[in-house]
């Protein structure tokens, strides 16, 4: 009786799991298959194309209107630089805020919290004018600067991590005569690998797909990132050339998705460590 019950329970569970899995996978599968389908329309008889073609991918790189290759290089550059700068800034500043007790520390934390509560694009106009006056508009420097400076406010996860590292570790090192910088580099950095991977990944992904600030700062087509180009493509002729859009979408999504899936253990650690400590 008990055994039959559990078989029943398990088969129901498997059925539900499979249904949810189809729901989770279908959109991705659909867009990948669409990108390989001949023709240009959104409508198709079957999910599975009659035959496969890479023509849309080729068109992305060869059509003069897109400069997809250039955007890819731009995006890679911006995302990598953003990742390096924001991870460094975030780790250093959060380490300081977590490890040291100094005057103004609570105030700094409160200010950070308060600033984080403003909708981020409330600052759009001001940043635009500011960059205009610094003559930085339409440069990749500016966009990296904007991303990196903004990232610091989201660093509470890192702080939460450093809060949990036992203080006896650095005290022991201090007694042995290590300077603050040595403690940080030799002891703290190796310990914080999971959380570093997590924030590096999220800041890379953030820069990879952001189109709001990128569209504001990057004005000429050669300077665009993938997300801006994609956004433009969608707005100008989404319905008339859906398969081309699908090919572009797949190329943008693949690096991020692959990274996330491969590093999912870090991701899970990052998400949960942020959770238990707010």
């Amino acid at each position, binding site marked *: 009786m008990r055994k039959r019950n*559990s078989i029943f*329970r398990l088969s129901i*569970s498997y059925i539900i*799991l499979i249904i*949810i*899995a189809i*729901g*989770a996978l279908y*959109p*991705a599968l659909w867009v990948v298959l669409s990108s390989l389908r001949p023709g240009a329309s*959104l*409508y198709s008889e079957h999910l599975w194309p009659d035959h496969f073609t890479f023509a849309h991918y080729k068109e992305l790189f060869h059509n003069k209107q897109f400069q997809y290759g250039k955007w890819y290089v731009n995006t890679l550059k911006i995302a990598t630089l953003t990742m390096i700068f924001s991870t460094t*800034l975030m780790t*250093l*500043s959060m*380490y*300081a805020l977590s490890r*040291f007790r*100094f005057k103004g520390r609570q105030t*700094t*934390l409160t200010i950070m*919290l308060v600033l984080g*509560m403003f909708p981020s*694009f*409330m600052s*759009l*106009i*001001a*940043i635009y004018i*500011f960059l205009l*006056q610094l003559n930085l508009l339409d440069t990749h420097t500016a966009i990296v*600067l904007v991303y990196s*400076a*903004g990232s*610091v*406010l989201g660093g509470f996860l890192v*702080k*939460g991590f450093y*809060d*949990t590292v036992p*203080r006896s570790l650095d005290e022991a090192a201090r007694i042995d005569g290590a*300077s*603050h*910088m040595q403690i940080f580099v030799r002891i703290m950095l190796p310990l914080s690998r999971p959380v570093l991977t997590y924030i590096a990944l999220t800041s890379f*992904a953030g820069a*990879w*797909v952001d189109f709001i600030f990128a569209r504001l700062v990057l004005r000429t087509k050669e300077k665009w990132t993938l997300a801006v180009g994609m*956004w433009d493509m*969608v707005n100008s002729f*989404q319905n008339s050339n*859906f398969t081309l859009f699908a090919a572009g979408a797949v190329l*943008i*999504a693949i690096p991020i*998705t692959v990274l996330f*899936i491969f590093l999912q253990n870090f991701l899970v650690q990052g*998400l*949960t460590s942020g*959770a*238990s400590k*707010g």
Partner: protein
Amino acid sequence: MKRHRATAAVLSVLSMGLGQLYNRQFGKGILFLCIQIASLIYLIPRAGHGLWGLFTLGEQAQQRVKVGKITKVIQGDHSIYLMIDGLIIALIILLVVGIYIANIYDAHRIGKVRDTGGKTNNFIQTYKFVTDRYFPHLLLSVPAFGVLFLTIMPILFTIMLAFTNYSSPGHIPPAKLVDWVGFQTFADLIQLKSWSGTFLGILKWTVIWAVVATFTTYFGGLLVALLIEQSGIRFKKMWRTIFILPYAIPQLISLLVMRNLFNGQFGPINQYLKAFGLGTLPWLTDPFWAKVTVIVVNMWVGIPVSMVLILGVLTSIPKDMYEAAEVDGATAFQKFRIITMPFILFSTAPILITQFAGNFNNFNVIFLLTGGAPVNGDYQYAGHTDLLVTWLYSLTLNFSQFNMASAIGIIIFIIVATFSIINYRRSRSFKEEDMIQ
């Protein structure tokens, strides 16, 4: 006895660095002097004009003057540039004043050390002392600078905009001037029928959306996590990977793809409905169905995160609690109700509030999926699915109603801040951080 400290402090009041030089700390003194000279060179030609601009927002608009037969444009004051310049100048003045005060304080302190017969540090010793004692300040100085000019300054600027009349069509520089109007914008938002109707309608939908979106993703994630974690389910890791996939795909892409999936005419969803003999639905074009669609799609996007979080909590529940319950003869449902559920709720309550605040400002889902459409004729520049934050965006970028957008931003801030304060009062990392160790 008090000779040195008083003299040094007075000298430092006269000019930055003099007190330090008097204290025979030449390296530090020269550094302070250089800062002073640099800031004076920067500020003297700019400070007056900058502050004047900040207070008046310009007095002379752009003019067209007829000279003979041609009209000449005489450039006037550009209120918005004046405002931002003034703000930056004001921030820099504050910064310099801060350094100035630190300089006097330092001269006084070193003077005191000399008065009591102590030894003063030379430059290299000072450097060592600073990197040790002020290590956290040094680490924070670079990011602080970035945050000051790329986050604080823009936010201050935007808050100030809410108290001006900077809006299309009447007050757009350089052709027209912008003026300070006090709380007029907020008064308009509440009193003018067209604005208040839109605001209340959108606020209502935003709250409904935030509540429904938070609960659907939370309980969806709970369901999936429980299904995977059941005893007897195999390939747990595989299931988790499959269900994480929607989170791994960038939202920009997945949401634009969804927009096509739910396309009323050619989208596959309606095709399947037709194939099963059901009628098609106006997923994104009908006000009601558009709201349903954004919530369903948000579940697809949001469930993986909740799932991951809850899976983490599930594995941390001590196994012996279940064993004890089994000994007492508890059924599976009782175990769930008495052990699992309270455990999960207790450890995820703060996230629930964070997610609520996040959904309140969930720009991506709405903007990429519907863009606020379908358009609502009764609303001022907004559609049926617009949230406050997407409304703010289109008011700023599409309709140039900058003052109203800023006022709405401030209101969003107040609402989100209220929730966050409730949350952070409970959160360990902020309040009891020293108790973990």
